[in-house]
C-alpha cells in the first residue's frame, strides 16, 4: 500500500490536474489521466511510471507552488515511482535494498573488487602482474569460471527484472494475454527507443532548467545505446567463441571490439552528461531521496566503461591482469544491483508506455461530454 500521505498527495494532484487538463498536449500521462475520473493506487502507480520527469508540466502549471494548490507533478510522481520499485521487487525481502541503494552499490562494488583482487592474487600470485601474450585473458580468469559466474548473475538479474515486470503488469490491471499485440509492441518500441516523451515534438524538455533542451534525451541515448552496444559486443563474443570457434582476443577491427568500444565511449559520455545535468537540475521538482540510487548507477556505468576501455588499450601490458579483475568486479556489481536500482526505471517505464499503447485504442473508462 502507498503510504497514506503519498496516496493523498497523488489523489490531490490528479484531482486538480484532471479538472484543468491544460497539459494534455504534453505527454501520455495527461491523456491517460483524462480517461479516468477516479484514481486508485494502481492508477497512480501506472501514471507515475508513465511520467518521464521531463518537467514541462511543472513550468506550465498555474497551480505550482507557491500557489496554494501546490501542484508538482514531476516530484509527486517521482515519489510514487520510487515506492512502486519496492512494491514490484523480487524477491520481496530484497526490496528494502532500494532504500539505501547508493550505500549498497558502493559497498558491494568495493567488496567485490577487494574479493576479486584477493582471490586473483592468491590464485595467480606474481602472474597477475605479468604481461600476457597478445592480451589473452583466460590465463588470468579461466573461461569456465567467467561463463559460470556471469551467467548465474546475469540470469538472476534477468529473472528478477522479468518478475518485476509481470508484477507491474498485473498491478496496473493488465492481463498477460494483452501482451500479444504486435501493433502496440511496435509503437512502444518506437516511443521507448526514440525517448518520445523527452522530445516534445522536437523541442526537448525543461531539464535541467526552465529552457527546453534536448540534452537529457541525447545523454540518455548515449547511455542507453552505449549499454546496448556493449551488450551486443558480449553477445557477438559469445557467438564467435561458441558458434564460430574463434577465440579471443579479437583484433581492434573485429565486430565485438568495435561494438564494445563504441558502447564504451557512449557510456563514458552519457552517464557523465546525465550526472552533470543532475547537478544543475531544479531541486524543487525532484525527489532528493533518490539521488543516491541515481548517482550510484551512473557511477557504476561510467566505471564499467573506463575500466573496459583501459583493459582494451592496455591488454598487452603488465596492468592487464589487474584491470581485468577490476573490470569484472565492477560488471559483477552492476549486474547484481540491476534489479534493485535505477535500472528498473527502464523496465517499468517501458511497461507503462506499452500499457498506454494498448489503452489508447480502447474505449475510455469515462468520456466526459463538455
Amino acid at each position, binding site marked *: 500500500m502507498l503510504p497514506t500521505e503519498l496516496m493523498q498527495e497523488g489523489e490531490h494532484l490528479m*484531482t*486538480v490536474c*484532471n*479538472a*484543468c*487538463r*491544460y*497539459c*494534455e*498536449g*504534453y505527454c501520455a500521462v495527461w491523456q491517460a489521466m*483524462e480517461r479516468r*475520473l477516479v484514481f486508485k493506487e494502481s492508477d497512480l502507480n501506472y501514471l507515475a511510471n508513465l511520467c518521464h520527469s521531463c518537467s*514541462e*508540466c511543472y*513550468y*506550465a*502549471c*498555474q*497551480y*505550482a507552488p*507557491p*500557489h*496554494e*494548490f501546490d501542484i508538482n507533478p514531476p516530484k509527486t510522481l517521482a515519489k510514487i515511482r520510487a515506492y512502486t520499485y519496492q512494491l514490484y521487487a523480487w524477491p520481496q525481502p530484497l526490496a528494502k535494498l532500494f532504500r539505501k541503494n547508493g550505500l549498497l552499490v558502493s559497498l558491494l562494488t568495493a567488496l567485490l573488487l577487494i574479493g576479486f583482487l584477493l582471490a586473483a592474487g592468491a590464485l595467480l600470485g606474481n602472474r597477475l602482474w605479468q604481461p600476457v601474450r597478445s592480451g589473452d585473458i583466460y590465463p588470468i580468469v579461466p573461461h569456465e569460471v567467467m561463463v559460470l559466474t556471469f551467467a548465474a548473475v546475469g540470469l538472476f538479474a534477468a529473472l528478477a527484472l522479468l518478475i518485476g515486470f509481470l508484477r507491474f503488469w498485473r498491478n496496473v490491471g493488465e492481463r498477460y494475454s494483452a501482451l500479444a499485440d504486435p501493433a502496440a509492441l511496435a509503437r512502444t518500441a518506437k516511443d521507448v527507443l526514440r525517448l518520445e516523451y523527452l522530445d516534445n*515534438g522536437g*523541442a526537448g524538455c525543461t531539464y535541467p532548467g*526552465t*529552457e527546453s533542451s534536448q540534452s537529457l534525451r541525447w545523454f540518455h541515448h548515449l547511455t542507453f545505446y552505449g549499454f546496448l552496444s556493449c551488450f551486443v559486443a558480449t553477445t557477438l563474443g559469445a557467438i564467435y567463441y561458441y558458434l564460430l570457434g574463434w577465440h579471443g582476443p579479437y583484433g581492434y577491427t573485429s565486430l565485438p571490439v568495435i561494438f564494445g568500444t563504441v558502447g564504451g565511449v557512449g557510456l563514458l559520455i552519457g552517464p557523465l552528461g546525465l550526472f552533470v545535468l543532475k547537478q544543475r537540475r531544479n531541486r524543487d521538482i525532484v525527489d532528493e531521496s533518490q539521488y543516491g540510487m541515481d548517482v550510484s548507477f551512473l557511477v557504476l556505468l561510467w566505471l564499467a566503461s573506463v575500466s573496459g576501455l583501459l583493459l582494451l588499450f592496455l591488454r598487452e601490458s603488465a596492468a592487464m591482469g589487474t584491470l581485468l579483475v577490476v573490470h569484472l568486479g565492477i560488471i559483477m556489481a552492476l549486474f547484481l544491483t540491476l534489479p534493485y536500482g535505477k535500472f528498473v526505471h527502464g523496465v517499468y517505464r517501458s511497461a507503462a508506455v506499452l500499457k498506454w499503447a494498448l489503452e489508447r485504442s480502447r474505449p475510455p473508462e*469515462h468520456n*466526459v*461530454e*463538455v
Partner: protein
Amino acid sequence: MTDGFSGFDVLVIGGGNAALAAALSARETGASVLLLEGAPPEFRGGNSRHTRNLRCMHTAPTEVMTDSYPEDEFYNDILRVTGGQTNEQLARMTIRASASCTAWMKGYGVRFQHAMGGTLHLGRTNAFFLGGGKAMMNAYYAHAERAGIRIVYNAEVVDLDVADGRFRSARVLVNGEPVAIGAKVLVAASGGFESNLEWLKEAWGPAADNFLIRGTPYNKGKVLKRLIESGIESIGDPTQGHCVAIDARAPKFDGGIVTRLDCVSLGIVVNKNGERFYDEGEEFWPKRYAIWGRLVAQQPDQIGHCIIDAKAMGKFMPSVFPPAKAQTIAELARLVKLPVEKVVATVKAFNDAVQPGTFNHAILDDCHTAGLKPEKTHWALRIDQPPFYAYGLRPGLTFTYLGVKVNERAMALRKGGQRTENIFAAGEIMAGSILGKGYVAGFGVTIGTVFGRIAGREAAMQALGRVENGTEEAPRHAAN
C-alpha cells in the same frame, strides 16, 4: 533614486500577454523597452497565466486549427454575445489581424496543441497553447530577456504623471521602494480592476463581497483609474465583464480553470431559498457558462446550489472539490443548509413537470419540462436516482470591461475624442472598446495579442520619431 529605470524609449506597464506582445513588438521595431510587472516572478503574467487559447480567423485549415473561421462568422459571434455593444471597425480590424497571431507567437517560442483533440472541441475557432497560458508567458519572458527588454518584477505603479494627454512619468513601488520612472512613450497593458475589491463594491454594491476572483490578485486597476482621472476617455460599464459560475469553495483569488462547474445543464439550480430561477437547459457550454455567473450574482447572497442525481455523475468535467452527497433530497438540503421542505417541493415540482424525451447532451435535445416557471427547455431528466449531489455556485469574476478608449493604432483617446500624445493601451485595459458585454472563449487573448503588437510597434515608431504625432496613418497591422 536613479537605478537605470529611466531613459527608455517605451515603458510598458503590465506583465501579461498584451504587455509582453507590446514589449516584444516595440523591441523588434528598434526601441529600448522597460517592462514593469506588479507580481513577483512566480506569479507573473497577469490573467494570461490562466488562459488557454486564442480565437483566430482563418480561411483554411492550419496546423493548429481545423476547417475555416471566416471574418464574417467571427464578427457575427462577437455581435451576438455583445448584443451589438461593440465597435465594428475595431472588431473587424482585430479579427483580420488575428489571422497572423499564431505565426507571430510561434516566432517567440509559443507552442500550440495540434488541431485535433482537445477538451473544449474548439479546434476550429481557437488555437490552444501547449501547456496553457503560463507556458505561453514563460516563452514570451524568455525571449524578452534574450531580446534585451528590461523586466522589473514586484513593480507596482501607483501613480501616473499625465498632463494634457501627455505621459511624463510613473510613480512606482519597486519591492516597496518608491521610484519615479520616465519614458518617451507609455503602453498601458495592466489589465482591469477585478481584484480591487473596493472598486468592485462601488460598482456592484455589497454583492461584490461574495464574488470570487478567478485570476490574478494583482489587477487592482490603479493605472486604469489614473488614466481616466487624467482625462482619458473611458469606455464600458464597471459592472460588465466576464463572470462565470464557479465552485463556491474556490479560493478568493487565482483559482483559475479548475474551479469551474458544468453540471448546471444536468440538474437544477436553486437559490438560498430553495427556488429555481433560470432555465438550466437553455444553452450549451461555454455560452451557458458565460451567463451563469451574472445569474448567481443577482440571487440573494450571491449563492446558487446545483442539484444533480447519480445519472449525471461522470457526464461533466470533474471539479476540483467533491460535491455534498446524500441518499435523499431532504438530507442533501440539510447538508448544504437549504430550507429542506422548499427544496423537496422544488425538486418534486420539477420531476413532475419533466416530459418524456430522448436525452442527448450533445444536442439541444427534446427533454424539457412543461408548466414550470421557469421551464427547463433541454436535458431535463427527473432527479430521482440516489445518491444525490449538490455543488455550491458563486459568481467567479474573470475580467472587467471598464477601460480606456483607443483608436486603431491602440492610442488612448482623450475625452472628446482627441488623441493623447504618447499613451497607448493594450489588452484588458482597452478590451471594453470592443467587448461591451458578453464573452466568447479566447477573444480576450486575441485582443491582447493584436493590440499588444500594434501598441508596441506604434509606441516604438513614436518614440523613435518615425511618426509625426497627429498625422493620420493607415493602420498597417490590419493586413499583415
